[in-house]
């Protein structure tokens, strides 16, 4: 006669949700106790904002009557979201290295809660980071055309960031430490965020690079957020800025990318988590 016999089975939806909330709470608490980490993650996008707004921005052409700061901030925001998502990989690698994941595996908790709690917490932290970056943007002159457009853009971006968390989480399930996660992801993340429309219109790039930049997911998401915040543009500008694509098409493509990345990397990460034990 032990209390363990009285405890209900953990496979019910209610326990799964409660486990996910418990893990999210734990992860958020950790993030809040290491604010320096969040600040450092935001430091480089803030510096990029200032650098491109005041140093390089004046030299960037091809935007017509669009103010460069309004062009820049959506790009910075997407870059920030991707970098912040990296924490999913770092934190999982750290938890594995310290044996904390083993403790969790020995508990009768929902197995999905470890990953779900991780990406939820990092997406919450991403929401805070985006708020700060947009505030910095507004301080240096960013003026979105419409508030609903901005909110929609942020939501879209958070969805994409959530999916990106799963990419890092998968790496974190393999890597033995934080440095390895960094080394493994940087060579992929760097070209994706810079060979994109984040800082300059792709129309200024050589054609081979433009072909890549125009169609890779980071550009699609940046363009979607930009189209939502910049408001109406002429068809010539749309051709120049968004490779001629309509706002709704960009939004739908972004959602599909987020869904696809989330499903593929999410299921790979779950499979990896389950395969390493019984």
């Amino acid at each position, binding site marked *: 006669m*032990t*209390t*363990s016999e009285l*405890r*209900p*089975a*953990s*496979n019910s939806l209610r*326990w799964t949700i*409660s*486990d996910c909330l*418990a*893990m999210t709470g*734990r992860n958020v*608490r*950790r993030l809040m*106790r*290491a604010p320096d980490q969040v600040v450092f993650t935001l430091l480089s996008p803030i510096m990029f904002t200032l650098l491109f707004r005041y140093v390089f921005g004046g030299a960037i052409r091809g935007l017509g009557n669009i103010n460069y700061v309004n062009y820049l901030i959506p790009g910075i925001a997407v870059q920030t979201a991707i970098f912040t998502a990296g924490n999913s990989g770092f934190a999982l690698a750290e938890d*594995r*290295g*310290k*044996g*904390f994941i*083993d*403790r*969790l*595996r*020995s*508990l*009768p*908790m929902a197995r999905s*809660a470890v990953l779900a709690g991780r990406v939820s917490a990092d997406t919450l932290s991403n929401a805070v980071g985006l708020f700060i970056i947009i505030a910095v943007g507004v301080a240096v002159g960013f003026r979105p055309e419409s508030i609903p457009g901005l909110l929609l853009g942020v939501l879209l971006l958070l969805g994409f960031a959530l999916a990106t968390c799963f990419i890092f989480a998968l790496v974190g399930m393999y890597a*033995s430490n934080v440095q390895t996660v960094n080394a493994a992801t940087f060579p992929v993340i760097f070209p994706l965020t810079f060979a994109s429309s984040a800082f300059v219109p792709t129309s200024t790039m050589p054609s081979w690079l433009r072909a890549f930049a125009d169609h890779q997911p980071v550009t699609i998401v940046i363009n979607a957020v930009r189209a939502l915040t910049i408001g109406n543009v002429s068809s010539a500008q749309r051709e120049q800025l968004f490779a001629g694509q309509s706002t709704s098409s960009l939004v739908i493509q972004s959602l599909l990318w987020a869904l696809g990345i989330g499903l593929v990397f999410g299921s790979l990460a779950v499979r990896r988590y389950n395969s390493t*034990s*019984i």
Partner: protein
Amino acid sequence: MVADSLVKTFNGTVKALDGVSFEIPQGTVLGLLGPNGAGKTTAVRVLTTLLKPDSGRASVAGIDVVARPQAARRVIGLAGQYAAVDEALTGRENLLLVGSLNHLDRRARQQRATDLLDRFDLSDAADRTLKTYSGGMRRRLDLAAALVARPPVLFLDEPTTGLDPRSRIDLWSVISDLVNDGTTLLLTTQYLEEADRLADQICVVDHGRVIAEGTASELKDRLGGTLVEVTLDDDGLAAAAVGALSGVGDDHDSVKREGSVVRVATATGPATLTEVVRRLDAAGIEFAGLQLRQPSLDDVFLALTGHAAEEAATAPKSKPSRRQKEPVS
């Protein structure tokens, strides 16, 4: 708890478990004793559902851990070198988290956390983050976390490795109390003294196999009950002494030399002692020391494996982190 012919191979070559079997009756303590790399931790990881065995069967409280891992997790607690606590959280938050993931309701987990913090002498540090805890406090909290759901079966994987002697003795008394409460316990250790002190039964493991089992005193009896230990001035004299003493003791294998020390295992201590003195005197070999003593588990280990337990156990201590992953341990 039953482990039956467990086999686990890593990377296709390293046999961490090579047919390990043991049984722990309810409410008793089994000490799994062996040096680093003997397979102790691998055995614990299999029994706690963290690792799937290549073959063999394992069950806790009658529940097959491979077939019903989630049910098994409801009856086990795990603490020690691999299970861990969260350094960024406070002691209380750690216990509340584990309580929540064990699906205790809010009131129950708060009560349980307070009780455990009190019991493990951590009340004063309850609301500080673990970064401020000493090694001993951390291990106590780790053990407390394993006990949150009152598991009837407990695994302690090298619970005192890396602790200073004082903390080790504190932890021993905590573990003794637990055992008195009727918990079934599997304890792994590199410390012979620890197994001797806490375990009802001891399994000596080496290279993934159980090489001996029994109570501490049964294992000591394997050496013939008593040891006559002669210390000489140098190895050369000791070798000469071995020659002079051939045939003394219970059988031809009773006389062993380790450096400048010669040990004779015997069932009849005093008589053998006299014989040893007479023989050495006759051979004209002077000795520096002579004693009659009960064998320690160290002697048992040396006799069983041909190498000392401590020798193998001390080397890994210089590693930067105890918690570093190594598949074979």
